């Protein structure tokens, strides 16, 4: 299961890479070769969304903006902008946070 997922991601990345003419870093190639968890090695955020109610964000860097309607979070690969209504931070530690409320959109702004 994990393997097929990783392969799928790889394919997507390649397609995206061709379009934007962006080359993969050596580090990324290396982690793909060894099938290491990318979120840890490459410092990428891992988002888990349960319906549109609860969102677990692992590996974030900092909270940039917090309002009931907008939540902007800085991560290792750029900024994530979550919009919705009644957003609250249910739990926050140095590595991960749980956001609850009704989420309308999740955007990746200037992600590499």
């Amino acid at each position, binding site marked *: 299961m994990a393997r097929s997922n990783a392969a799928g991601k790889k394919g997507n990345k390649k397609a995206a890479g061709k379009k934007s003419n962006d080359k993969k870093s050596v580090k990324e190639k290396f982690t793909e070769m060894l099938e290491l968890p990318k979120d840890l090695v490459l410092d990428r955020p891992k988002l888990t969304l349960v319906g549109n109610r609860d969102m677990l964000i692992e590996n974030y860097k900092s909270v940039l903006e*917090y309002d009931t309607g907008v939540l902007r979070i800085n991560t290792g690969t750029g900024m994530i902008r979550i919009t919705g209504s009644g957003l*609250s*931070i*249910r*739990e926050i530690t140095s590595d991960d946070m749980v956001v609850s409320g009704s989420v309308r959109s999740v955007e990746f702004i200037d992600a590499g």
Partner: protein
Amino acid sequence: MKFLLFRLWNYLRGYVIIIVEGFFLEKFINICARRGIRLWDVRLQAERRVTAKTGISGFRLIRPVARKTGCRVRLLKKRGLPFVFSKYRRRKAFFAGAVLFFILLNVLASFVWCIEITGNEKLDRVFLENALAANGIRTGVLKYRIDTRRAVDRMMLDVGRLSWISISIRGTKVKVEVREREDLPEIVPRHIPCDIVAQRDGIIRQVIAKEGIETVSEGDTVKKGQVLISGRVPVKGGEQHRLVHAMGTVMARTWYEGEAQVEPERAETVRTGRVIRDHSLVLFSKELDLIRKRVGFSEYVSEESRKKLTIGDDLVFPFEWVTVSHYEVVNLQASISEEDARETAAREAYKKALGRVPDGAEIMRENIYFTEQDGKLTAKAVLECIENIGRPIRIGGN
């Protein structure tokens, strides 16, 4: 489930609800997160004002962060067990009471307060209780002192009429279960000559002699004490007898009767509904009267109900609440229909007859009839049984 556990954990650890006001709330949250101050339920209340929850240790670290980011932190509420405790910390008597309660509970629970005896049919309860008390099992004894295994052995020897006994301690209760032994039939030793003698009157149905000479045959009417199988075996061609130990079974039809008079009237005591209750409290073994009223009824019946203080089934405490209810009664002579009267009498007669049937007898036929004498009707129940009436009796002895 996970969140429930989480909340329980937070409650046990204690937490505070704070209000943070300031322009750089995000910065405040970020620094808190980085310094390992766990925040949860961060909710925006108004523009630039947020409520959040944090642990007790986290709250101590939060002031410098607030100063650094220019936020104002106010404590809104304290929640959790540590705060509950600190509230009661000064109330020494309360804590002493709580501790005393648990000590008392433990002390009381280490004594025996109740003895429950089950399985005894013929043996008297008081007799068994006395026997148990002689072996150190009585109410008020420290339960750790009781050696149940030794007590079981002693009881088997002391009482003598038990086939099995089990003693177990459950809570403050000693459960004693017994099985009684059937009375042993009289045994004449094998080498001593004997006759088989009728134990009671009856009509012989079948005689099977394994040893000895049959002196009765099928259809004979025998009286109690009559020799059925003789141990005197005549020697051929002589007047002399050889004495043997007679053995065998003699099945006979026997009858058992019971009588009861048919009463056309029945004395009935009817409660008038007026009642006076006395209450008393039994502490250990001392009875304290709490409420005792004068009973002004001319005739009354009293009922006693005892309630023991127990926790669960087995943890019995030596406190008992006794209520004695005195019900006023009037005696009425109620006449009943003849049919009912006959039925009641018949039932009673049957019960009496059944009580006379010995163990081992098989009831073959039941008859109930009514006889009239001096204008009084009597119900008679006759039970026809088949049983072994033979009993070995030593020759020359009694």
